[in-house]
């Protein structure tokens, strides 16, 4: 069982490695599209990296429903 802080750490790590964001650009309220300019293809790439880390498989509808980093954290946390 991971804490929400640990899960946030994973998500942030993936975003930093995959898209070169810096740590101060990322907090739970950060909007994936409006703030980080991710597109649907980026979201799939991010999900694949997170799947490798957490073993959790994102359904396509789930991925479409997330808007902030917190939404991604909640999704992974809800399936622990």
């Amino acid at each position, binding site marked *: 069982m991971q804490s929400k802080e640990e899960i946030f750490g994973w998500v942030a790590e993936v975003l930093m490695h995959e898209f070169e964001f810096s740590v101060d650009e990322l907090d739970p309220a950060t909007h994936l599209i409006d703030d980080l300019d991710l*597109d649907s293809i980026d979201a799939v790439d991010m999900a694949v990296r997170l799947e490798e880390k957490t073993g959790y498989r994102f359904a396509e509808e789930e991925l479409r429903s997330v808007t902030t980093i917190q939404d991604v954290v909640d999704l992974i946390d809800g399936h622990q």
Partner: protein
Amino acid sequence: MVEPLARLAHILVGALSFVLFGILGVLLTLLVFPLLYLIPSTRSVREVRAQRILHWSFRTYRAVMTVTRCISVEVLGEERLRAPGPHLVIANHPTLLDIVILGSLMPQLDCIAKRAAWSNPFLFSVVRATGCLPNDSGPSLVEACTARLQQGRSLLIFPEGTRSPADGLQPFQRGMAHVALRADAPILPICIRCTPPTLGKGRRWWQMPTQTLRYTLEVGDPVEATLLAPPGGSRGVAVRRVSAALRDFYLKKLHYTER
């Protein structure tokens, strides 16, 4: 007195050219493309044949528009389009006629169209017969585009995903860079200029100016996408670099400065 008459004449010629476009469309839809389905062949062969037919239709239309002095078209570096492909052709998108002019230059060119085109009675048959790709989902569109290039078919992408604003560029959609990197096909960048600015987004065809629309197309040197991305980086980073580098290229070519 002369000025309003000249304007009226020009509007009539303009209207007639749109009628011609409609007639060509209906002929292809009702007659030519249905006949194509009667010839036994694979889907890919049929689509490429339909593209060739559309190419000749666009050439005819362009010739009529040129003779009637509605447009003039100058193409610089056209020989680059005839180099062995497949190419990922990209272009800015200032006017409604861009696709007609680009289509008149290349006998085989896969295109992307809005999903709505498949339910438009005038466009349905054309997009289906020529194997246009619908733009509804990013990830699956990237896969479909990559597959076409890997089959050896050249593909046209307007990286802005819609028409360019007057004197500027929309942000680039990064799907184009994804396709370029995955298919490892050379990018052929085409710069389209049209003076006076017309037929852009938010303009109607009858608002066109009374003078000839002068198109200049400049076909650039082929670009290898992999050379624009830093080696060893993630895919997300590579795609951002390729997309930004190409947008900068267009801004420079078109002498636009980012507001």
